[in-house]
Every structure is written in structure tokens, then in C-alpha cells.
């Protein structure tokens, strides 16, 4: 079965630095990959989607890369701010099997002022 790995340890960085979060998956590549932000006690909020045939996507201070050879997606937040502190989830969908969005366990980001 497909597995998704996100760093379970919290990532602590200083305000203004770039945060880089990793999402690794096993077996064959998904049709697309999404990144979500989740604050404590709230539902996830969609951030970015990147397709299998795309290498990079950007939105304001956010950048996502997708390397199907490494089976990895990187999520970058540039010029990070304390307000960026949250848990970030990657979610993958494969066009085989159940065709359901499968989430990783998330990585908690803490931006220190």
C-alpha cells in the first residue's frame, strides 16, 4: 500500500528565514499532490496543488516542488513569520485503487520572533 512520510518532529526556525518541509511517498507517483495548513482544533486549509507533470508551483511566499524520481515534494515558506506557525499536511491522490486523498501525518512548524 502507498505510504506517505512527513517529518514528525517539529521544525523550529527564526522569523525571516525559509522553512522547508518534506513529504516522501512510496511506490508509484500520485496524480497530484496538495499541501494544507492546519491550526489546532480547526480543519485543514488548502494551500497549493501540484500535478505529476509539474516540477514547481509558487503562490506568494509559498513554493512547492515535486520530484517523481526522488518520490518527494518540498514545501517552502520564504520570509517566514510567527503567523506561519501551524501544522502542514501533504495529501496525495493516486488514480488507481481507491482514488481517495491520502494525508500524511503532518509537520508542525514553529516560527520564533
Amino acid at each position: 500500500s502507498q505510504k506517505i512520510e512527513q517529518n514528525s518532529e517539529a521544525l523550529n526556525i527564526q522569523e525571516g528565514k525559509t522553512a522547508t518541509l518534506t513529504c516522501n511517498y512510496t511506490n508509484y507517483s500520485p496524480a497530484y499532490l496538495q499541501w494544507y495548513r492546519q491550526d489546532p482544533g480547526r480543519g485543514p486549509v488548502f494551500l497549493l496543488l501540484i500535478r505529476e507533470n509539474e516540477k514547481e508551483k509558487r503562490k506568494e511566499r509559498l513554493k512547492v516542488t515535486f520530484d517523481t524520481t526522488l518520490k518527494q515534494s518540498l514545501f517552502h515558506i520564504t520570509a517566514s513569520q510567527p503567523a506561519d506557525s501551524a501544522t502542514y499536511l501533504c495529501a496525495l491522490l493516486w488514480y488507481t485503487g481507491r482514488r481517495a486523498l491520502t494525508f500524511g501525518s503532518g509537520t508542525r512548524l514553529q516560527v520564533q520572533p
Partner: protein
Amino acid sequence: DAGVTQSPTHLIKTRGQHVTLRCSPISGHKSVSWYQQVLGQGPQFIFQYYEKEERGRGNFPDRFSARQFPNYSSELNVNALLLGDSALYLCASSSGTGEYEQYFGPGTRLTVT
């Protein structure tokens, strides 16, 4: 416009009881998905409905069932509750199935004692 709404916000039930959770999608969205999120984990897919038909089902026992109504709202039912069913239940709506971003509601926190 109102986002995805869920009711109730919190619920406490006893083992063996039955529970019904409700979800209203964003206006115009025809797809509703249900997820279970245990503390420290990512959301786990339970069901997806589109145009009142079940389009996907996760690895959950038959005690879990759902339906979608003509107005696209949805209910998730869980019978014979177990302690392990304690979790945050999230509803998400989207424009369609496949590569559409999902809009999550605030969730229903279910505690089984």
C-alpha cells in the same frame, strides 16, 4: 459566503451508542468527503459522495455509513461506538471529484467514554 458547516461541534457518547454527524457544503459544491483525524495524525479518508452517490470508501468497518441529500448536505453515521472512534471528524466539500481543492469544515470532536 458561508464555508463548510458541521454540527454538532462537540459530542460525548458512551460505548455502544450511535451517533449522527452533519455537514453542509459550500453553496454550489456537489462533492462531500468525510475524514477521521486522531490526535497527532493526518485526516484519514472515510467516504466521498458526489451527486448523492458514493464515490469512494476508506478502510473503515461497516459500522460507519453516510449519505448525501438532494441539497448536497451529508450525514455520517457511526453505530456501536468504540473507544477508538474518539476523534475529530472532518467534512470537506469540493466542486467535483479528482483534482479539486477541498474546503474543510471546523470538524466535530467526538469523545466516546
